[in-house]
């Protein structure tokens, strides 16, 4: 299905068909108090060249890879995107396709979503995945709301090592409800401290992120076992799904719901968005899942086909009782990640994950050798925390002038971690880049 804007001729013809003389005439049933009768306060349209200049000016104010060496991830990661993904994604069948409500019209889009769901479920080790949410933060929040629906309880435990921005979104969603959030602190090794769970027996969910915000691998099995003992759901978030090419995926560790950010898988960082909320669960909870779901079926002739399924749970059918108030998805981003996962394949994802891990370990070792402290001992993927000591702020600023972004200062998120920086290394960073960084800060 293609989307083409109306020409003035189209508009005249349509008005003639429905029997109105002007667009104002068409909208006259809308009370005038509800209409904007003024000109919109918008600047004049720019020419293509002016627009390009304007965008270039905006871009030059940012530190973008590859011009800058960016050692910063924190939920948004620089990875190479195979040119095949960029090419396929640019096809109009994908770029301009609309919501696939009508299976008669939308078999291609529906099949693509079905494949995205299948790949997502396999990567996360889960039984069923939806067609995607808007981003990792809202996906994780929806996971908590789903756990509340399933358990009929009102309290959720969330690790302090879940991405701070995700936690803010969780708080925003839950603020007008009577649901309670219990924050779990972290241990000296950089993993979540489950101790505060001991006194709690009315929990809907125990939510951790792995790898967590410090890059540390959480012990998902232990956290899941604790959740189960308390008849709560084990919810696992993530911001770097590439890690599951190397570490055990959440499904294999007993997670009930897994939700996080899929930007890593073939989607540019784009100043923070658009993003991809990946969402998966155990099959027994499928009816409580938010969002839309594509299923495989057969038509009257027994031929394979794809349809939206379980739509009776969606907002467009029953608004007050819907499982979620978001009933669409980020389809183009989902398709980008499906193309990316297919292009790499299982062995490619494993190799790439290993490469990311090895490079990151190299920088970690070099920084340690240069005398800096790596405070958290737990194994990490892609990211780790380093204590650069007093006064590093100036060095950090100086490096920006040299087009090097030496990590994310953590103090604004974790006041106790002054002079601590979150470093990130992906396959896009070379050994020379890392040696240069270490050389300049020693």
């Amino acid at each position: 299905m293609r989307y083409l804007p109306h020409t003035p001729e189209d508009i005249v013809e349509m008005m003639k068909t429905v029997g109105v003389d002007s667009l104002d005439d068409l909208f006259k049933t809308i009370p005038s108090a509800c209409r904007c009768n003024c000109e919109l306060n918008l600047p004049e349209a720019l020419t293509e060249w002016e627009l390009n200049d304007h965008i270039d000016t905006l871009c030059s104010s940012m530190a973008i890879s590859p011009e800058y060496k960016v050692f910063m991830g924190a939920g948004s990661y620089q990875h190479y995107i195979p040119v095949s993904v960029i090419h396929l994604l640019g096809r109009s069948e994908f770029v301009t396709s609309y919501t696939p409500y009508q299976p008669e019209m939308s078999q291609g889009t529906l099949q693509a979503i079905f494949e995205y769901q299948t790949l997502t479920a396999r990567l996360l080790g889960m039984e069923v995945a939806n067609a995607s949410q808007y981003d990792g933060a809202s996906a994780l929040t929806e996971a908590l709301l789903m756990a509340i629906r399933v358990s009929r309880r009102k309290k959720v435990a969330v690790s302090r090592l879940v991405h701070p921005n995700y936690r803010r979104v969780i708080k925003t969603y839950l603020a007008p409800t009577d649901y309670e959030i219990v924050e779990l602190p972290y241990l000296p090794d950089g993993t979540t401290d489950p101790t505060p769970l001991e006194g709690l027996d009315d929990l809907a969910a125990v939510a951790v992120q792995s790898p967590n915000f410090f890059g540390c691998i959480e012990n998902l099995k232990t956290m899941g076992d604790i959740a189960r003992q308390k008849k709560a759901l084990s919810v696992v978030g993530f911001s770097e799904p590439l890690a599951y090419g190397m570490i055990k995926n959440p499904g294999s560790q007993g997670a009930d719901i897994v939700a996080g950010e899929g930007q890593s898988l073939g989607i540019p960082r784009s100043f923070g968005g658009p993003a991809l909320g990946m969402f998966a669960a155990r099959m027994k909870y499928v009816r409580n899942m938010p969002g839309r779901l594509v299923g495989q079926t057969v038509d009257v002739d027994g031929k394979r086909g794809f349809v939206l399924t379980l739509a009776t749970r969606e907002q467009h059918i029953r608004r007050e009782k819907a499982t979620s108030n978001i009933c669409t998805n980020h389809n183009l981003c989902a398709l980008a990640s499906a193309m990316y996962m297919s292009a790499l394949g299982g062995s490619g994802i494993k190799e790439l994950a290993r490469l990311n891990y090895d490079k990151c370990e190299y920088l970690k070792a070099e920084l340690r050798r240069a005398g800096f402290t790596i405070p958290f001992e737990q194994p990490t993927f892609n990211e780790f925390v380093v204590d650069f000591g007093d006064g590093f702020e100036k060095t950090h600023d100086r490096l920006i002038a040299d087009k090097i972004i030496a990590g994310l200062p953590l103090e604004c998120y974790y006041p106790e971690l002054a002079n601590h920086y979150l470093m990130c290394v992906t396959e896009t960073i070379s050994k020379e880049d890392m040696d240069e960084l270490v050389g300049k800060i020693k």
Partner: protein
Amino acid sequence: MKDINDVILRDDIHYAASHEWAKAEGDNVKVGISDYAQDQLGDIVFVEMPEVGETFDKGAEFGTVESVKAVSELYMPVGGKIVAVNGALEDSPELINNTPYADGWMVEVKPDDPAELEDLMTKDAYLESLKG
């Protein structure tokens, strides 16, 4: 869909305005949905049930029933404790369409106040309400 006069309504049970039925069986009350309700919903594909031991007030939501067309909440015709749920519905929700008053029963309740049963509608009153 059935004509109102073809809807099967039994004499020996009580009806709620939200289309559940309730039938006294010894000290307990069996609950399901009426023939009218199953007919309106169409093919039922899933029923979400409470757990044995849960208690609900009269009028409280105790589960949901999902058909190919819609999802509807189920409300307690009398308040009380769930003592049994119809496990057969998990694999065969169509039992509700086939025999809503027999194999399609949903839960068995130990009522807090058996007199609540008398507050529900009789067959004739329910039929009148359906005719609107």
